[in-house]
């Protein structure tokens, strides 16, 4: 089996060294709370609901890249592909609770559910109120009528943006929770893979795809998606992805959406521009108003070659929160 080269020192030190490096680069607006796995924004208004996000190491810059002004107040990061331990989540919860409670937003995986639910119980014992929104945006993982079974991937960023926007108003925990939940129900993502990424620890490929094949709806580690097909032009692939997303969100003519065009790691920014060109051209042709599209490396599967499109169906309230200025390592407005 071929192995790819990785710039690491010791597989056991990947998370600690990566988090330390990240914190040095962001020390003007972020700090570690007790552990480098608990990353907290320096500025945090005293009377708002706290937004806490988190998950394992592997899909960087999710989640650490989304802490900052009008973004999450804290990200709690686990080990490689493992949810953060409940005591770390509790530490983050304590750090950002200002008496108005804390909203947890994370991707829907069994380990994350176990750890965050346990942390929520620990927080409750300390009198800190929490609510939870699990992102279930991966269209490739389950049909739309089974949304709670879907894995969570890139769309988490859109939900975090909207929830943080709502929290920046004087809204209470239940209000922010309702906004985030509605945003989550209206957010879907598809990943298109052209080539597997390789594991950070050992450089081994996560899965195999033939040279002339792509897979639409593939999971973040190559979990089977909606099926493999031959490579086509960018426009043809984007059209399939958009049609699937629009159908999934029951979008009809006149609806308004916000889109994230994301590289899965190895696909170039030039290709993302080409993809976004088609998105911007063709959504109006389909009767859909494109409120905004953002382009970048928001969520990766190491060096997977491929891209994802996330789509959130907006209403007036969600649009207001989506448009608020924001500052974080990986999302700026």
């Amino acid at each position: 089996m071929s192995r790819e080269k990785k710039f690491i020192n010791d597989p056991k030190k990947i998370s600690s060294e990566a988090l330390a490096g990240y914190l040095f680069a962001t020390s003007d607006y972020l700090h570690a709370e007790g552990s480098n796995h608990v990353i907290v924004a320096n500025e945090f208004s005293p009377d708002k609901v706290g937004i806490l996000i988190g998950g394992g190491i592997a899909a960087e810059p999710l989640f650490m890249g989304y802490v900052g002004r009008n973004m999450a107040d804290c990200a709690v990061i686990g080990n490689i592909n493992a949810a953060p331990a409940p005591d770390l989540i509790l530490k983050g919860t304590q750090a950002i609770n200002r008496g108005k409670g804390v909203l947890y937003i994370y991707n829907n995986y069994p380990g994350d559910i176990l750890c965050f639910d346990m942390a929520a119980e620990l927080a409750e014992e300390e009198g800190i109120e929490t609510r939870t929104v699990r992102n279930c945006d991966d269209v490739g993982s389950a049909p739309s009528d089974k949304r709670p079974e879907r894995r969570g991937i890139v769309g988490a960023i859109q939900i975090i943006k909207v929830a943080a926007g709502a929290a920046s108003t004087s809204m209470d925990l239940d209000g922010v929770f309702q906004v985030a939940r509605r945003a989550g129900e209206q957010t879907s993502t598809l990943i298109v893979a052209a080539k597997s990424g390789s594991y950070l620890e050992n450089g081994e490929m996560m899965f195999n795809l033939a040279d002339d094949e792509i897979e639409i709806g593939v999971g973040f580690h190559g979990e089977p998606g909606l099926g493999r097909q031959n490579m086509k032009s960018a426009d043809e692939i984007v059209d399939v992805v958009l049609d699937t997303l629009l159908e999934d969100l029951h979008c009809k003519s006149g609806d308004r959406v916000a889109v994230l065009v994301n590289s899965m790691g190895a696909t170039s920014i030039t290709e993302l521009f080409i993809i976004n060109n088609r998105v911007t051209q063709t959504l109006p042709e389909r009767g859909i108003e494109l409120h905004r599209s953002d382009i970048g490396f928001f969520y990766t599967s190491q060096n997977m070659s491929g891209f994802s499109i996330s789509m959130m169906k907006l209403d007036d309230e969600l649009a207001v929160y989506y448009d608020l200025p924001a500052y974080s390592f990986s999302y700026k407005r």
Partner: protein
Amino acid sequence: MNWQFIMIFQHIHLATNGEKMKTVLDINDVVRMMKYVSRQIINWQDLLNEADRLIGDGDHGTSMARGFEAVLEVLDTEAFSTLDSVFLTIGNTILSAVGGSAGVIFCTLFRSGSKALIGKETLDSVCMAEFLEKAMEAIMKRGGAKPGDKTMLDALYPAVIRSAEMKQAPLGEFLKEMAVVSDQGVENTKLMKAAFGRAKTYKEGAVGFADPGAITTSLIFKYMEEFIASEVAT
């Protein structure tokens, strides 16, 4: 083997080995036993990773090794006055060190099990049986899985069932039987489709492979028993 037969066997055994035979363990023995178990699970790191690579993300061995390395360290440094505090500490240590589903589930095994040992200073089959029952109940509640879902419960559940009939046996025999039935439980997971975790995404593809968490569970019994057996032999 029914337990009356085991009792007869034990009786002979006791008669020949005299007071060297351990039917109960004190706190010091339990700490040494759990250090032995920890070292053995750490040794299984690569094999557990390999088992997990077939149906999961290939890191179960790494996770368990990280957890039990932390357990070894804490058992070396802390002093304990009751058995529940030993297992509570083991559970909490695994949770903090590992995170993820494996961290929570194996934490719950020890932490909820410890509730059967509150204030106790000796471990016997009766309280070990209660330990397993409490642990299983809590794991099912916490994780939402049930026997047959291809999880560690498929190694724990047969042990709980068998333990009810083994309470009167000496602890070594008790654990030996737990190791046997849980190992059979591991075998049975090979025939199951996964209902949880990443293995679920492999659908029928997971059939034919054992669940790594079930393997770890059966290893814990195996090495507990092995420790006691080695104590008898020395």
